[in-house]
């Protein structure tokens, strides 16, 4: 490539490149604004998605226990543990 040819190629690339970057991003501005408008009006009717996503289904059914059940559980646990401790001590005297 001759030197002056290189110059014109460079100049061409600069104009084409910069022009295209602007066209591309302008289009992106337009369609993004448009998309935001559509979604905002759509969400007025159906509500927004939760930020952390839709909770995934799991195989384990979560056990929703009342405070009373918890207290009962703790009581049972304490009885069992103290019995175990008692047995251990009586063996290792």
């Amino acid at each position, binding site marked *: *490539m001759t030197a002056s040819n*290189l110059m014109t190629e460079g100049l061409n*690339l600069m104009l084409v490149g910069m022009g295209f970057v602007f066209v591309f991003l302008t289009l992106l501005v337009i369609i993004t*604004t448009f998309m935001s408008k559509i979604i905002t009006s759509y969400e007025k009717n159906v509500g927004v998605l939760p930020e952390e*996503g839709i909770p995934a289904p799991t195989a384990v059914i979560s056990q929703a226990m009342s405070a009373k059940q918890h207290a009962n559980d703790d009581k049972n646990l304490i009885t069992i543990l103290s019995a175990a401790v008692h047995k251990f001590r009586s063996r290792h005297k």
Partner: protein
Amino acid sequence: MDKLIHLWEATGIHQITPGQGVMILIGMLLLYLAIKKNFEPLLLVPIGFGGVLANIPGAGLAEAGGILHIFYTVGIESGAFPLIIFMGVGAMTDFGPLLANPKTLFLGAAAQFGIFATLMGAVVLSYYGIFDFSLSDAAAIGIIGGADGPTSIYVASKLAPDLLGAIAVASYSYMALVPLIQPPIMRALTSESERKIKMVQQRHVSQREKIVFPLLLLILVAFLLPDAAPLLGMFCFGNLMKECAVVDRLSNTTQNSLINTVTIFLGLAVGSKLSADKFLDLQTLGILVLGMGAFAIGTACGVLMAKILNKLIKEPINPLIGSAGVSAVPMAARVSNKMGLESDPHNFLLMHAMGPNVAGVIGSAVAAGILINYIGA
């Protein structure tokens, strides 16, 4: 005795050339900058160490069959590493600020002028016979102005593999220098009252918009510029994984372990290009100077574009966020924020600056696509 001579001839002291010595020192300098000065340590530590390894005399780590050469062929020559990194960057990017104010995309577009101005600079230097850059070399040097490491490496590997070492080093060191390069330019181009401009609070962006945006961008790229599809496609994929919130495990891997693993090998592979015969060349000096120019011009154009937008639209835009249009996420946005706070301690620009910042990433990937398309054709 023969054995002793043989052993002596195999030592590094016997085999070392002055060039290799200098390159080992340069590798050490990069390590010093990374460790002591905290310049992009995540990349400069592997690059610097790779540079030292590549120049060990007689070991041939960077020659065909050597381990660094293998990393290079597998990851950079094929284009895979920069693209995987781009996917990770996508998974770490939040398009919220950009969607709240899409006009900031113009700032990201303007800052790409640095790329093309530098390309022109390199061409002019060759025209006057100061350097001997071909058009593809010039394009690869210009992309330093995109201030985006993976994009620079991707373009350089496609257009000017010989210059890759110098381009990658220039690109990452200037990214680390953003807090020093940008403020004087920003101060020179704005008045005190412009720096005090308060921007309106950003609106809330819903999750649905964030999910649709990467798909929209992907379709636009597919229609208009398939040459940018490798870069932006991976970027959009990473971002979609993050925003759709149903593949958290994939998204976490992409933005943590995967990007870290690839960074290690990318750094070492770039380091393998720091061999004496390629790097110790007047061209490297030219690349460093032009790269600096690219950064400065990009910053200036971003700021000027913000001032023009201010005249055209009602919503006030603080010109300081224009400089964030040269990607360098999130460093450039932090610089804008800091400059804003200097003029008015209650003016927080960080979130506003993140808009042009991610727009810059898109802009430089588009510019990269055009360069590859134009020169490949």
